């Protein structure tokens, strides 16, 4: 028999997770689609379900010296409207799904769902954001980049849930593009985020991440470090393209083919580098 657990508070939720292997239901915008059977029938689960979307203790946005803390049940709409959230996240979130979905869905659900097309992963990975994993035995932190390690693969133990996300604001100028087909259901075909900091024509920070072009969000610190310290006049577009080209390994699916995706990803990278050389990243 499948149990449906509706905890009254976080402590109760963690006690349940310690004893039962559960699906965690948050906003439901991924899980309800995945478990949908047909009109009038209940969604079909093959193990217990724990509902956390109503937990007030997980609904908050606050800021301290460590960063900006977003509780796991905080919805996109709250993030979009909060003065504490860096603009780059708002930009990315505004392009996710439709207003209705953004009223329901959460960023913790987007991370845990670990789709290569998960849009928030791109800025989270680029900006070194962390997840806090909490269980009855305590909590631990992990970079989002490590936490998601493949298609639907995350380093979550059965007794843990994501209790919060910690954003680390960076001093970067950003270039973001999401390429999809139709606004409201545009599952991303390719997304690109570049972040850069330039002082007196010298690159002080340089970061690139791609979504939907590999089993997880692409970011490579080795390549980034190579360009830190360079004068923008010595930045060679083809060198950057050649560095990233092998990391961009998209697949062909019903949305798009891999040649197209690779081409678009490289064109966006090129545009980013050209803008840097012309001194013009300002978004």
């Amino acid at each position, binding site marked *: 028999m499948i149990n*449906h657990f509706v905890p009254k508070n976080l402590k109760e939720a963690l006690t349940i997770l310690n004893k039962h292997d559960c699906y965690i*239901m948050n906003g*439901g915008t991924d899980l309800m689609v995945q478990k949908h059977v047909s009109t009038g029938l209940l*969604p079909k*689960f093959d193990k217990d379900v724990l*509902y956390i979307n109503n937990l007030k203790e997980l609904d908050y946005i606050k800021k301290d010296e460590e960063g900006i803390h977003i509780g796991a049940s905080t919805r996109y709409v709250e993030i979009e409207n909060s003065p504490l959230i860096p603009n780059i996240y708002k930009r990315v979130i505004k392009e996710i799904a439709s207003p209705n979905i953004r009223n*329901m869905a959460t960023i913790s659900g987007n991370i845990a769902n670990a789709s290569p097309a998960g849009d928030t992963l791109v800025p989270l990975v680029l900006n070194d954001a962390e997840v806090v994993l909490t269980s009855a035995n305590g909590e631990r932190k992990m970079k989002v980049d490590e936490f998601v390690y493949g298609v639907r693969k995350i380093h979550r133990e059965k007794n843990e849930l994501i209790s919060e996300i910690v954003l680390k604001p960076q001093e970067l100028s950003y270039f973001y593009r999401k390429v999809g087909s139709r606004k409201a259901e545009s599952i991303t075909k390719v997304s690109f985020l570049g972040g850069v900091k330039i002082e007196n024509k010298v690159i002080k920070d340089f970061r690139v991440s791609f979504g939907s072009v590999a089993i997880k969000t692409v970011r490579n610190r080795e390549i980034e470090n190579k360009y830190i310290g360079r004068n923008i006049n010595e930045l060679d577009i083809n060198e950057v393209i050649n560095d990233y080209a092998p990391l961009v390994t998209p697949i062909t699916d019903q949305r798009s083919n891999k040649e197209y995706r690779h081409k678009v990803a490289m064109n966006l990278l090129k545009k980013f580098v050209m803008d840097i050389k012309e001194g013009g990243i300002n978004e």
Partner: protein
Amino acid sequence: MKISFILNKKNVEVDVSPSMRLLDVVRDVLGLTGTKEGCGEGECGACTVLVNDEPYNSCLTPIINVANKEVMTIEGFRETKSYRIIADAFASQGGSQCGFCTPGMILATYAVLKKNPHPSEEEARLALSGNLCRCTGYQAIVDAVMLAAKKGIEL
């Protein structure tokens, strides 16, 4: 499991699985069939209802997520002054043909105008981007939103 919420300004209690879709609770358990099911996957907006005055897709909402919250379906919204203004605008601009998308469109229109009483056409289109219509070609719907904005909905 017994779950209570407010539906169209009245307290209701249902005894169902917490996983049941809000859409099925409203239509099958409570018999209000104004809320429609199109895709069942979050992509068409036919199932739009207001939860604490914000539009949700009821086909993706497990009923427990609205426990103790205020849910408004098109049946409840019909009793408001905003409804009259929006519905008249849809009628005069030809924003409704077969009518299947209309309950969702009307609630989505209310939600846009509440956030942004004077949207540009572009903003109106973006705000309705999660609501599909197979009949009108959208321009008549956007015209209806602009007309309702001009008249001013009452909040």
